[in-house]
């Protein structure tokens, strides 16, 4: 450290900044909370009137409505906390306690934002309820007719099994086929050039084709060719073939990215030990690559699951097709809602799994030396 005398530069002094005043923000949050309490009560009253108009009377439903009306009262807690803290901040500032003022002000802002966040969610919920009961519950009737859902559920579930079988087979096949194509694309040397070319053309072509067209061409076209093998295949098998060809191309691209991400030094290490090209792929490169690409592979897998609903274009009675038949019989879409819910139910656990795997990979990367 230099003495100030020997240094010509004046030492700079720092003037402390006072905290932001949170009083008006807190007041705004409180007003918003009060408004939402009134709005919620109004919406629930509307729901009650719609129920009466439709001769729906149930004690439990009334109970639910009352409970929902009480929910926004919870907003008063963070709002009033915010107000208290901002007042405390003002008082601390008056007694020149800057540090306490900062702490209180920061608390006041946090609680005000808290109020705003929950209020926003509540607004969305109220809008949805209004949409649902609009036009004398038209939305509710069209999509959520409970009786139809209950009656058609068995048929839909049975038909959904067709989707499950298709995507399980197509999933396993496309995982294998994709790896084969990816390796073909990466074969080294001049003699393998034609193979590489074909593999590249295949992936390019099927990446650009909409899967619905592939399903249409294969599902209708192959039986038309009259070749014995294809003529006797069930439609479901042709759907599996079409989805395998389409998603095999997607999977191949993911595999290729994974294989190329393995550092050349791993190849050098394996080959220098006398392992052949194939052994290096099998024991060193593919196992490492697959670990890295599990999340994107699973994403493709989920995408394919959803595309199984497209097989209805060739007349496979899958869940969607079954639901459409029911929908046109009853002039109501509730059975389709069932299908939507089934797809959501099987997909959400998988997307959460993908998230988990991605997070695990990231954690390992952070920790890795």
């Amino acid at each position, binding site marked *: 450290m230099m003495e100030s005398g020997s240094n010509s530069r004046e030492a700079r002094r720092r003037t402390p900044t006072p905290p932001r005043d949170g009083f008006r923000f807190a007041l705004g949050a409180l007003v918003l909370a009060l408004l939402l309490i009134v709005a919620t009560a109004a919406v629930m009253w509307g729901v009650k009137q719609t129920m009466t108009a439709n001769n729906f009377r149930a004690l439990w439903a009334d109970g639910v409505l009352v409970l929902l009306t009480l929910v926004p009262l919870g907003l008063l807690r963070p709002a009033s906390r915010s107000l208290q803290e901002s007042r405390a901040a003002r008082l601390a500032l008056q007694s020149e306690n800057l540090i306490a003022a900062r702490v209180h002000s920061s608390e006041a802002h946090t609680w005000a934002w808290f109020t705003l966040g929950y209020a926003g969610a509540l607004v969305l919920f109220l809008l949805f309820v209004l949409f649902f009961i609009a036009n004398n519950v038209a939305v509710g009737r069209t999509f959520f007719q409970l009786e139809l859902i209950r009656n058609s559920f068995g048929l839909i579930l049975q038909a959904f099994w067709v989707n499950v079988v298709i995507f399980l087979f197509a999933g396993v096949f496309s995982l294998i086929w994709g790896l084969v194509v990816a390796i073909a694309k990466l074969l080294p040397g001049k003699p393998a050039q034609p193979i590489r070319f074909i593999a590249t053309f295949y992936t390019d072509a099927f990446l650009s084709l909409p899967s619905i067209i592939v399903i249409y061409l294969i599902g209708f076209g192959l039986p038309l060719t009259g070749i014995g093998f294809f003529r006797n295949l069930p439609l479901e098998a042709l759907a599996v073939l079409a989805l395998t060809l389409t998603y095999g191309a997607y999977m191949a691209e993911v595999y290729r990215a994974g294989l190329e991400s393995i550092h050349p030094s*791993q190849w050098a*290490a394996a*080959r*220098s*030990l*006398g*392992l052949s090209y194939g052994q290096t792929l099998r024991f060193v490169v593919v196992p490492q690559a697959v670990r890295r690409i599990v999340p994107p592979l699973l994403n493709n897998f989920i995408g394919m699951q959803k595309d199984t609903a497209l097989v209805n274009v060739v007349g496979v009675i899958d869940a969607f097709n079954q639901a459409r038949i029911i929908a046109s019989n009853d002039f109501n879409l509730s059975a389709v809602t069932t299908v939507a819910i089934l797809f959501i139910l099987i997909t959400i656990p998988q997307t959460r799994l993908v998230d988990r795997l991605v997070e695990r990979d990231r954690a390992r990367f952070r920790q*890795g030396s």
Partner: protein
Amino acid sequence: MSFLKIRNVHKRFGANEVLRGINLTVEEHQVVCLIGPSGCGKSTLLRCINGLEEIQAGEIRLHGDRITGPGVDLNALRRDVGIVFQSFNLFPHMTVLQNITLAPTQVLRMPEPEAQAKALALLKRIGLEHKAQAYPDQLSGGQQQRVAIVRALAMEPMLLLLDEITSALDPELVSEVLNLLRELAREGMTMILATHEMGFAKEVASKVCFMYGGVVHEEGPPEQIFTNPQHERTQQFLSSIIEAGRL
């Protein structure tokens, strides 16, 4: 007949000629140290000897048999010539034990129990038998490099190539790796090292080669190279090393 004879080897990467006519002879049980500034072709030469890089001209003979050019069984060559890399290059998805037994079981078709017993014996020798089930990223750099050396030794090579194997290590971990090399040298393992460890080269090498500009500029016993270098460029290199306090 010499053990390893390198004659007029040229290697180009595109327009960049890295090796411009290397001549070098290595006898059995010799330890040859390649020294020289970065980019002089030490690593490339080692990679050419076990066929990781193709050469454009010249030839390399092992026991009189030509090991460069078309038609050479590289997998068979690499069973006899092992290499250890600067960055260890262990397989991160395999345990230490699996790293060592992979090549013996898959390439030499050694039965699994036998390969494991042998690997454990080698690990015991370097004091790492308790790490057999660990994964490479659970080891220190020095431990990883010793495992990498043992992985190469498990193939019982007749020649071991070591490519700046201590350059990526913390100074305090260098000695554990060098001690292992000293031991191997005492047992008569034929080795070629590309190295910046001048003290080690001085102590262990049977022959030191100063490489510069893609050729072997000067070679001789360590006493001669380090105390009485003949060429001006060698003198410059050594004096800069001394200035940096590395000799």
